[in-house]
């Protein structure tokens, strides 16, 4: 019996079980690249616009940190690679490492692997299946991206290099995640380690790209960008990730063959024998369960905020004074270009932050499904108290996440303009979206109480607001659809003036939804 027997059966099983997940990952990355090309073409219609943009970016460290090395920016292809290249690479890496961890360590931690290994399934079948699935995803993303780029009349050579460098980075993180999955018993630590490698890769190339580019050679993302898509098209830098992929795959295979099922190289730490004083109420438990997620979101939103904020000062250099820009400014409230940009940035950050609110309410449903709620509600904990604990965490967490995003956006701008007054101005603009975020929390709680099976609807609403907010112009969404979004109804500070009435309405709606949810949960069966 070979070590890999049964791999194909597992591949088909994963493909079926995760079909939605596979589709969403692949589609969102491909769509992101697809919509970037026409928006670049619209933003820089003439060669003159491209040349101006290239000059504006060349010396702007804030832009380079998040977009990558300055290469070929006076071409449409070069701009596409610059604007969306780093984001694509990061997404492909995340897709690869989460998928691999999900198919390996998560299965093992849940005990399902044990069930499978007792069947005539090879020792390496699970690793093999994870490798096949993740590699197929990467090849599919790469292939589709190449097709989309060539389809939009970009040079075939650059498109191929761009696609290949994304596949190379994806496969590098497949191999890394397969290795980290062997190291620890804990699924979130396994994916966390791989994420840390990604974070380091991002930092190294950011420092390298701002400097003379040498440090970028230490970064896997750097290797993929050294291929210079649409700006010279070099294939040989991809030999570096190829070597590392082989090394990590060999390492993962060796570690997997040596260790016991369920075990890792690193033993998990034990916890306290007694609970701290805080862990004794529904709220205390909700805080304990939710603090990790909140901290991750706060950190992530601060970084995303930095990305938006560091570009603000240079924005006029990019876009010049075209007619399209004047219309954009007018729509945002008719002040300056920088304020219009900040208004948009704050608006987008708020929509992203609202995902946190929905996600933390989703925690209620998983607590119920995992039968934790059953144990808690058979004590003298009342149903409103239990739901309330999680709601408080979601509401307060939203404040922290918005604050972090606001500070992230405000600090670089305030430093670059040497104007400390920008901090309260931008953070304040961010917090104006708090009612909208809370409304989403309320919607999720209402669904949890009334139709727990349909909690996905909150995510769907969130995704719709996101798409309308980000790509509404591009997709030519009718105005009335746009107006349904509470984020659209919120005044877009700092570009637009503060009006209180819409905020009051949104808060009242949110309170109503929350109350409906809590009341309805008190009346339904648990399960």
């Amino acid at each position, binding site marked *: 019996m070979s070590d890999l027997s049964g791999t194909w059966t597992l591949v088909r099983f994963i493909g079926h079980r995760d079909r939605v997940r596979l589709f969403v990952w692949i589609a969102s990355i491909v769509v992101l690249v697809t919509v970037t090309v026409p928006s670049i073409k619209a933003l820089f219609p003439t060669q003159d616009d491209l040349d101006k943009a290239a000059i504006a970016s060349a010396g702007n460290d804030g832009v380079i940190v998040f977009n990558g090395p300055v290469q070929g920016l006076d071409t449409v292809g070069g701009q596409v690679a610059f604007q969306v290249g780093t984001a694509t690479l990061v997404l492909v890496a995340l897709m690869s490492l989460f998928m691999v961890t999900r198919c390996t360590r998560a299965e093992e931690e849940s005990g399902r692997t044990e069930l499978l290994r007792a069947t005539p399934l090879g020792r390496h079948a699970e690793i093999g299946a994870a490798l096949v699935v993740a590699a197929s995803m990467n090849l599919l993303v790469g292939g589709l991206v190449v097709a989309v780029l060539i389809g939009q009349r970009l040079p075939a050579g650059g498109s191929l290099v761009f696609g290949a460098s994304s596949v190379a980075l994806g496969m590098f993180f497949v191999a890394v995640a397969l290795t980290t999955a062997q190291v620890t018993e804990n699924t979130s630590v396994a994916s966390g380690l791989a994420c840390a490698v990604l974070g380091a890769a991002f930092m190294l190339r950011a420092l390298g790209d701002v400097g003379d580019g040498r440090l970028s050679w230490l970064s896997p993302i750097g290797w993929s960008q050294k291929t210079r898509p649409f700006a010279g098209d070099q294939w040989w830098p991809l030999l570096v990730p190829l070597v590392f992929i082989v090394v990590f795959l060999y390492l993962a295979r060796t570690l997997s063959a040596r260790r016991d099922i369920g075990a890792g190289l690193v033993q998990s730490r034990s916890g*306290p024998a007694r609970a701290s004083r805080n862990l004794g109420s529904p709220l205390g438990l909700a805080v304990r*369960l939710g603090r990790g997620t909140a901290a991750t979101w706060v950190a992530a939103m601060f970084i995303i905020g930095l990305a938006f904020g560091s570009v603000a000062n240079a924005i006029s250099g990019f876009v010049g004074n075209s007619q399209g820009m004047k219309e954009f400014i007018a729509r945002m409230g008719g002040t300056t270009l920088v304020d219009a940009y900040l208004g948009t940035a704050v608006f987008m950050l708020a929509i992203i932050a609202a995902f946190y609110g929905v996600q933390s309410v989703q925690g209620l449903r998983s607590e119920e499904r995992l039968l934790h709620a059953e144990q808690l509600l058979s004590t003298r904990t009342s149903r409103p108290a239990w739901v309330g604990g999680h709601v408080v965490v979601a509401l307060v967490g939203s404040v922290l996440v918005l604050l972090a995003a606001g500070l992230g956006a405000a600090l670089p701008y305030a430093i670059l303009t040497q104007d400390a007054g920008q901090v309260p101005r931008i953070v304040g603009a961010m917090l104006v979206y708090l009612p909208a975020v809370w409304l989403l929390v309320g919607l999720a709680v209402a669904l949890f109480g009334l139709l727990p099976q349909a909690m996905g609807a909150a995510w769907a609403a969130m995704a719709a607001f996101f798409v309308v907010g980000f790509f509404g112009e591009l997709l030519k969404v009718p105005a009335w659809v746009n107006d349904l979004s509470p984020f659209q109804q919120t005044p877009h500070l700092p570009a637009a003036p503060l009006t209180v009435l819409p905020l009051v309405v949104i808060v009242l709606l949110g309170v109503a939804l929350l109350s409906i949810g809590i009341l309805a949960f008190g009346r339904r069966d648990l399960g």
Partner: protein
Amino acid sequence: MAEAISTRGLVKTFGSVRALDGLDLGVATGQVHGLLGPNGAGKTTTIRVLLGLLHADAGEVSLLAGDPWREAVILHRRLAYVPGEVNLWPKLSGGEVIDLLGRLRGDLDYRRRDELLERFELDPTKKGRTYSKGNRQKVALVAALASGAELLILDEPTSGLDPLMESVFQDCIREVKQQGRTVLLSSHILAEVERLCDKVSIIRAGRTVQSGTLAELRHLARTSISATTTQAPTGLSALPGVTDLVLDGQRVTFDVETDQLEPAMRILVEHGLRSLNSAPPSIEELFLREYGDFMAKEATHAATEGSANMTTGQQ
């Protein structure tokens, strides 16, 4: 004696499945009451209704003289519960879960908690995700037993415990009983029920099919007899209540209902009884008799349509 738990005609449906179909249950205060039945019989659903986690569609239910749905929070101060499937929070240690549940219940006795940890040989510092099934069960048991609640509701609490720990558990339940507290113990381990319970209710397909003290139930059961006589015994087959009769010359084996034991013995004695072997009626025998046909049907049903306990157990 006052009733700690009483239900009449309890009905609960999930979609098209009737999980409880007119269930009657009476648990007297201070007694250990066994709830017996195979997977999918409705034990867990019954308990969830008693805890106010599910709302019954029809029927009356009273728990500690209150309504478990409307007065859930007040009643929960007075009871402790061990679920059949214990899922712990992966990030919390066993000790943290015990303290959390105890504090939420409001009457955690730390000395008793530490004593129970020792008796059950449970390491409280391990994280939830690293416990085995048996150890997860122990966490929930320690949390429940460390409270002074007047009613304990235990849903298959020993599934996953080794025999040694099972005997520790039985000691604990006897202590609880001595303190005059009430226990509702759902189980499918018959030996455990026989050892611990004052009264037993056997349920099947959401209905109570037998209920009574062990002595009463034994009375309903049959005794297995095998005997050797000097002459071949005649007349046994004519007795009502004698089944599975096998005559092999002077050796005979048969099952007999308790109230026909005396005439059966008389026949054996009349034919020159030389040796006698009698197996006392066990609850297992009664259980199997109640379930014989039913389980055979369930088995084929489950094989074609998936596990029957999904309908009541999980959702």
